[in-house]
Every structure is written in structure tokens, then in C-alpha cells.
């Protein structure tokens, strides 16, 4: 086996320039493929980041103002959700995992801890809300059923809020009290928003919010996570939801302004579909580039076989079988494409790695929007394996025709070919 490789290397050594030139086209092909696929991954990560905040199959319902007269009622009526809407949907809407109503307290409620204070929007939610919107808890827990039922004055905030309010103390925030307006709330949990690490959010139980801040039984909007896995299923749930609410609030089912429904699964799938298209396109371009490389290698190998007609004739005259000639030419081609491709692979990976580092430092340096466009471009292990297989195949294809030609060389003709 070692012998066999030495035989090939000794030929390749004679023609360094030719081998390098041949290899370059393959290197370039693989390099481009890796760069393209890596960039594709980067775009994909960016897209995923856009959806990181909400569970992928969620529906958000906002109340609006009717635009059509319906059932003897004039257009322009404001629709208001209450706890009854929540109860109704809980009872009647099928295919639902979690529902949470939301209510916002006015922005001018000041949040204070000792001498520090800030103004952030306080959102009142239900215990199920953390199953609809993803939160990375660093300390403590989310609002639970007991908090909700017993109107407990508890609060859950994001880390940046803690960083601001407790910047002068090293206290453990859990169990500490902050004041919302003049009412103290106990901090029970601290989390990070995976979508935006700087976002400042303050959550209290909806029941507490309604009671303490005179919210009555009002709900501003509803967040629903569904069991649906397809857009069609999610769409069906959306339609059902629209019907239920239209009946209750007496507006026309096709009144788009009465309630506004944001179906994230639909968006996600749309983006995913578009993305699958891009991905396919990238693969096609990559494969085409490699094919160009294969044709290049094949061409050069054919010329090479012509150049080596005499040598092959000699080999055959002294006992080389046709299969050993095929092996010789094929291995040479596979070796060239293999090594060249590997170089291209490494270069491509290297460029992606550097790009990743640059983008990461840009994001850390405050260019957070990069997160949503392009981040972590990388060619994963599978791509590397696929590319390697493509390479070996490319070498075989590139070498096959020339090798066949070489094996068919008749020693007499070759030897008389002066």
C-alpha cells in the first residue's frame, strides 16, 4: 500500500506545477462551497435569532377598533378584552397549549430600590406566559399559580433592570423588595431575554396588576401558544379564535381591524420556506463550482494521459495490467483533488472562523442588529464530511474517463509513438 502511494507520489513530484495548477481549481470550488454554505448558516442563525423570543407556534391577539358596521352596531367601536375573554378561549378554543392575558401599567410608574429609580413599562401576565415567550432564568423563578390566585405582590425582572437598580450593592436580588409606584413588590426571579440581552422587562401577576393598579378585569392582549406544527393547523386555530371573539364582541368575522392577530408560526414557516430556497440555491452554486473544478481536472488528466502514452505503454509492456493503469491514473486524480480539496476546505473554514470572530466582536461592541442579519457563520461537521465525500467522488469522476483511455492504450502503438 505504501509502495503504491510512493509510485503515485514519484509521478506527481515530477510535475509539481501541473499538480498545483490542477489542484487550484478544485481548491477554489471547495473553498467557495464552504464559504457559501457557511454564509447560509450565518443567515439561518440570523433568522433563528429573529424568532428566538417567542415560542415558534404562538399567536398574539391584540384588540383594535372595528372598521365595519355589523349586526346593527356602528363601525369604529373599540374592542376591549377582559378576563372573560380569557376564560372563554380557555374553554372553547381547541388545540391550545397555553394562554396568557397581558395588561400594561402606565410608563410613569417609577420603579425604585433604595435610592435608585427608573421608569420601565410594567407588564401584568399570567403564570403560563413564560411558556409562550422564552426567558432564560438566571435566578429564581417565574410567577406561579399561587402568586396569581393569591394576588401576591411579586415581580420578575430582566438582568439589566437589576444591574441598574442594584448597581451599588452586591445584594442577592431574590427576596429583595422594589417599589412599583409606592407599593413594594418582592423579586422572585431574574432572567435574560434571549432575543435582546439589554431589554428591560418587568413582569407582575395579572391578577395583582388588575387589583392593585385599578385595572378592573381588563386585558390588553392575549398570547397563545398552540399545539400546531403546521401553518395550516395554526391557521385553523386562528380562524376558530377569530370566530369565537367575533361572536362575543359582535363584530364581523372578516373585520381585520377589530382584532389584530399575529401568527408567528406562519411567519416562521414563511421565512423557513424562503430560507430553504436560498439554501438550495447555495448548494446548486457550490456544486456547479465544483463541477467546473472537476471538468478542469478531467481535462488536465486527459492531456496528461496523452503525454504519458509512451510511459503507460512501457508499463504495460513490462507487465502492468489494465486495472493497475486505471488505478494509477485514478489515484493520481483522487489524490490531487483530495489534497487540493482539503486545502480549500481548511481555507474556507479558516475564513469563516475569522468572519465569525469579527462579527462576534462587532456584536459585543454594540452592533446588536448583526444578530438578526448574520451571525455565527459556520460549516458544521456534516458539511465537512459531505464536502469530503463530494471531493472523493469528484476525483473519481475526473479521473475515470482519462483512466479508461489510458488502460486502452496498446503498448505497441505507444512504443512506436516517437
Amino acid at each position, binding site marked *: 500500500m*505504501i*509502495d503504491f502511494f*510512493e*509510485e503515485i507520489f*514519484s*509521478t506527481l513530484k*515530477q510535475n509539481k506545477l501541473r499538480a498545483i495548477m490542477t489542484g487550484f481549481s478544485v481548491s477554489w470550488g471547495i473553498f467557495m462551497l464552504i464559504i457559501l454554505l457557511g454564509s447560509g448558516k450565518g443567515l439561518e442563525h440570523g433568522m433563528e435569532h429573529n424568532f428566538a423570543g417567542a415560542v415558534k407556534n404562538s399567536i398574539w391577539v391584540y384588540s383594535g377598533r372595528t372598521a365595519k358596521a355589523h349586526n346593527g352596531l356602528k363601525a369604529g367601536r373599540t374592542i376591549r378584552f377582559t378576563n372573560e375573554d380569557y376564560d372563554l378561549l380557555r374553554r372553547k378554543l381547541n388545540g391550545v397549549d397555553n394562554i396568557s392575558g397581558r395588561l400594561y401599567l402606565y410608563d410613569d410608574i417609577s420603579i425604585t430600590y433604595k435610592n435608585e429609580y427608573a421608569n420601565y413599562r410594567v407588564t401584568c401576565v399570567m403564570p403560563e406566559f413564560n411558556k409562550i415567550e422564552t426567558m432564560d432564568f438566571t435566578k429564581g423563578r417565574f410567577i406561579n399559580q399561587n402568586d396569581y390566585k393569591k394576588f401576591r405582590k411579586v415581580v420578575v425582572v430582566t438582568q439589566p433592570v437589576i444591574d441598574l437598580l442594584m448597581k451599588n450593592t452586591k445584594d442577592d436580588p431574590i427576596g429583595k423588595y422594589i417599589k412599583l409606584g409606592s407599593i413594594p413588590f418582592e423579586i422572585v426571579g431574574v432572567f435574560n431575554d434571549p432575543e435582546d440581552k439589554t431589554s428591560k422587562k418587568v413582569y407582575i401577576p395579572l391578577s395583582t396588576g388588575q387589583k392593585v393598579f385599578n385595572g378592573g378585569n381588563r386585558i390588553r392582549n392575549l398570547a397563545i401558544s398552540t399545539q400546531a406544527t403546521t401553518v395550516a393547523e395554526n391557521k385553523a386555530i386562528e380562524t376558530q379564535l377569530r370566530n369565537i371573539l367575533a361572536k362575543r364582541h359582535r363584530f364581523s368575522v372578516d373585520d381585520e381591524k377589530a382584532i389584530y392577530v399575529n401568527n408567528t408560526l406562519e411567519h416562521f414557516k414563511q421565512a423557513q420556506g424562503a430560507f430553504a430556497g436560498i439554501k438550495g440555491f447555495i448548494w446548486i452554486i457550490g456544486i456547479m463550482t465544483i463541477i467546473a473544478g472537476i471538468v478542469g481536472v478531467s481535462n488536465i488528466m486527459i492531456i496528461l494521459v496523452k503525454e504519458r502514452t*509512451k*510511459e503507460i*505503454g*512501457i*508499463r*504495460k*509492456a*513490462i*507487465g*502492468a*495490467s*489494465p*486495472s*493497475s493503469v486505471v488505478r494509477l491514473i485514478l489515484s493520481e486524480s483522487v489524490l490531487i483533488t483530495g489534497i487540493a480539496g482539503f486545502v480549500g476546505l481548511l481555507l474556507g473554514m479558516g475564513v469563516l472562523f475569522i468572519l465569525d470572530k469579527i462579527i462576534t466582536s462587532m456584536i459585543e461592541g454594540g452592533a446588536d442588529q448583526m444578530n438578526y442579519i448574520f451571525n455565527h457563520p459556520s460549516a458544521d461537521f456534516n458539511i465537512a464530511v459531505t464536502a469530503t465525500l463530494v471531493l472523493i467522488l469528484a476525483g473519481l469522476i475526473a479521473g475515470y474517463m482519462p483512466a479508461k483511455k489510458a*488502460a486502452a492504450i*496498446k*503498448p*505497441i502503438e505507444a*512504443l512506436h509513438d*516517437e
Partner: protein
Amino acid sequence: MSDSIIRIENLHKSYITGKNSLHVLKGIDIDIKAGEMVSIMGSSGSGKSTLLNIFGILDNYDEGGYYLNDILISKMSETKAARFRNKYIGFIFQSFNLISFKTALENVALPLYYQNVNRKKRNAIAMEYLDRMGLKEWSNHLPSEMSGGQKQRVAIARALISNPKVILADEPTGALDTKTSYEVMEILQEVNNTGITVIIVTHETDIAQCTERIIRLKDGIIEANEYVTNPAIEVVNG
């Protein structure tokens, strides 16, 4: 069993080029015994190279029979032909046909590569044969760095390394000057003395005179088959 190493019976061979058919060999019978040194002579177009190619299983014949070491060689696969060539036959060519990018040693060792002899062993054997040809110091030189006589000696060493029964030499001295030609013939005679059959195709009478038997071909048939009583090489030596 006979002591023939190469035997042909009523051998016919035609080359077909388009509509024309060229009848090159028109029924030839030759019987060469093991250990003989034979030359085949004839003007160009007499069919002597074709005959040698058939002997070397480099070409097929149309009719008749060819027995190499009493084995009938008829149409066979390339792979099998390669094995036969490797086992029985050593070639020497007018233009040496050494592989230009391989050193003398690598060229000599190549037939053993196709017999799957490992590198260390085949290089050692190749060195032995080069030494016999007086080219030990030249083992790491490329063919382009050697003279014609040296190249032909490398080619002879390569032909001998697989321990063939027959050496087929196609105009082995055609590209050499007279002095070197006789040196090469001397070596071929030494080879023959070790019991290997040597068949030389030539058109030079004095080269043919170095062999024991001369077969003269003319227009595809044997014109004469004469035994040399006093091989010329002795005269040169004396």
C-alpha cells in the same frame, strides 16, 4: 513436452486499415529452442516487427498457432497478457523506452513492482542487476543523464530482472554506434549463456552474425533459416 520455448505454426496476420487489408505474415513456421540466440532479419515491411510483437503478446494474430513455453497463446484478456509478459518475456527496444522521470534504479525495479515485490527488496535486486551491467554508480541518475549505451544497459537490466525465459530485442543497437553496439551484443550473449533465449530483430548483418541462427523474412514468409557457424562476436573479441 518439447524443448521449444517459442513455436509458431502457419501464422497469419493482416492489418486492416479502412478498406485495405495488408497481409503482413503469410504462414510462418518457426521453432525456437530454449537457450537459443536467434536473430530475425529482413528489410522494412518484411513483417519482422509484427512477428516480434506477436512473440511479445503485444499483438494478436489471425490464423495459426503460437506456443510460448508450450502454452497456446491465443486471444487473451489484457490482464492475462500482462501477466504472461511479466513472467516470461523481457523487452529491449531500439529507443530504450526508459521512463524519463525515474532513476536508473527505479526503471530497473519497475517490473518487480508489478509482481508486488516490496520496495526494499526490489531495489536491492535492481541494484544487483545494475551492478552486473557495470552501472552501480549510475543508479540514481535519470535516463537523460546517461549515454545511449548506458541507457540500453539499464533497459537490459530491466528486461532481466523479472527472470524471463525469453528476451525480445527490437533493433537493440539501432540507436548506438558500432563500438557500443558490440558491447551491447556482448552483454546479450552473456545473458544467453545463462540459459535465457534471446531473439533479436535487426537489419544489420554484422549484428545478426553475432547470433547462432538467422531467420530471414521477406514479404511475410521465411526466406532463409541459416545457422551461423562462426559468430562474429568472437572475431571482435579476438
